[in-house]
């Protein structure tokens, strides 16, 4: 019976963090196109959105996202700061979405994440040419962001709960 028990929140968060780190490292290993990004989702976007909703005012979330972004920049060979901007913008948009949602459910959380992912695509469109030149294509990033948004309901429990009691902007 113990095996069927729902894992604790801490365990789920640890799994979510592990997925986020793996989504940064795995595309950089020469393991073939299946592990490239896309089709591999940008799990750090899930983490940024979930941590923004649940980690109300702590400094750990932005610092962790910045470190993961720098690691992603290093492994991808791109300019330092590009993925930092994308992940932190997802975090900040997630904060705004958390404040705006009074009674979140799965659909509203999913919609909020889709908006967040699309905003990061727009930010990538603006920031990537600064470091990579104006010929850079944002289409693969948009493709990865769309895949990430589609898969969000499957992994939502790892990053956030839909209950209103944990959310900073929720009415109680």
């Amino acid at each position: 019976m113990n095996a069927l028990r729902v894992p604790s929140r801490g365990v789920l968060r640890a799994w979510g963090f592990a997925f986020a780190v793996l989504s940064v490292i795995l595309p950089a290993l020469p393991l073939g196109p299946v592990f490239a990004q896309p089709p591999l989702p940008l799990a750090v976007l899930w983490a940024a959105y979930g941590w923004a909703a649940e980690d109300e005012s702590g400094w750990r979330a932005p610092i962790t996202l910045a470190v993961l972004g720098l690691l992603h920049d290093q492994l991808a060979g791109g300019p330092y700061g590009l993925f930092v901007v994308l992940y932190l913008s997802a975090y900040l948009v997630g904060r705004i979405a958390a404040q705006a949602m009074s009674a979140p459910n799965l659909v509203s959380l999913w919609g909020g994440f889709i908006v967040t992912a699309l905003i990061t695509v727009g930010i990538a469109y603006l920031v990537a040419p600064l470091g990579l030149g104006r010929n850079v294509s944002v289409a693969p990033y948009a493709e990865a962001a769309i895949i990430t948004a589609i898969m969000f309901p499957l992994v939502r429990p790892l990053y956030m709960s839909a209950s209103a009691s944990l959310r900073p902007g929720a009415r109680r």
Partner: protein
Amino acid sequence: MARRRSGVRRAGAGRRIPPGVVLGIVLAIGAVILVAVQSNNRPATEAAQQAGDGAAGAAGQVATRPARASGDFFARLGGMWSATSRIEELENENRELQAWRELAERLAERNARYEALLRMPVDSFGEGADVENSIAAQLVLDSGGPFTRTLVANAGSDHGVRVGYIAVNENGLIGRVVSVGRRSARVLMLDDYNSRIPVMGEASRVRAVMAGQATRPPDLYTHPFQMQAPRLDFIVGAQSLREGERIVTSGDGGLYPRGIPVGVARSSGDGQWRVALAASQRPIDFVRILPFVGVERPEDAPVSDAGPPLASSSSVSAVGRETLPPPPTAPSAEAPRPRRVASQDAAATPTNSPAPAAPPAVTPPPAEAPAPSQAGTPQE
């Protein structure tokens, strides 16, 4: 917790922004500035990137070891499963290949005779590169990201790798070394959007510039997540290019050596020519880095002539000093090339304009003799 909640929920002038959000905003602004600063390729960021590549490469080598080992294991296991049928298949193939080998040897011999008759220059692999002293390396990191297409190999300046060297594998060209650390080198792949390579058709000699794109075609069903083949721009004589023709580097511009196989020409529906890359036929594992220094930077090759600048003296004398060929020298014993051979060369070169008739008594100086690699090449 209650205090924090009230801080978030309080409206109006007393509302305060949580420190996490402030930190996030500050870090995001700092990251944008960092991205903008790096567009100038500062040495500090390059050094940090190279050091990071070295550490990440070492970690990647360790991390991929189990995957490589298990891949070998499963390949061996699969090979044992169908060993008997595979041996029979290979024996049949070997018998067929024996006949093809004899035919190929006869054709190669005949081809060599024709080339000697026409005085064709030898099309060698990587002409200009130091192929004999190539550096073997293993691929340890693949950018795999959505923006750039680069690879990291586990050979760096300690192994003799320098920026500008050429990375190839057994199938063909992979890219060019753009950054070198002590024990790692980052290679810009051919399909990166920054990559522009002068190429030519091997048979038609049609020149073009191959431009990488790092985008994907929309057909997710037939080519799921495969990179789009680089397109050919600035094609000179596109009507002569043939479907399936081998594309090799032309060596123009001095950035790449001549004659390295790049891929096969493919015509897309919209009239655009693309190159199916030879190196991407299978996952890239081991690479060979060819020492090649094409065109040196002006800073690295200072002009030794310390004469006055052009504007400081008579333009006539300055232009004359720069452009007039050296005076003809008297024929000597070291210039044994007879006049008859030179005229044969001119006759063998199918040009539209008639060859100028040189006075028979004057032998061209050795400095003006055509280079062996260019003489007799019809399209050049």
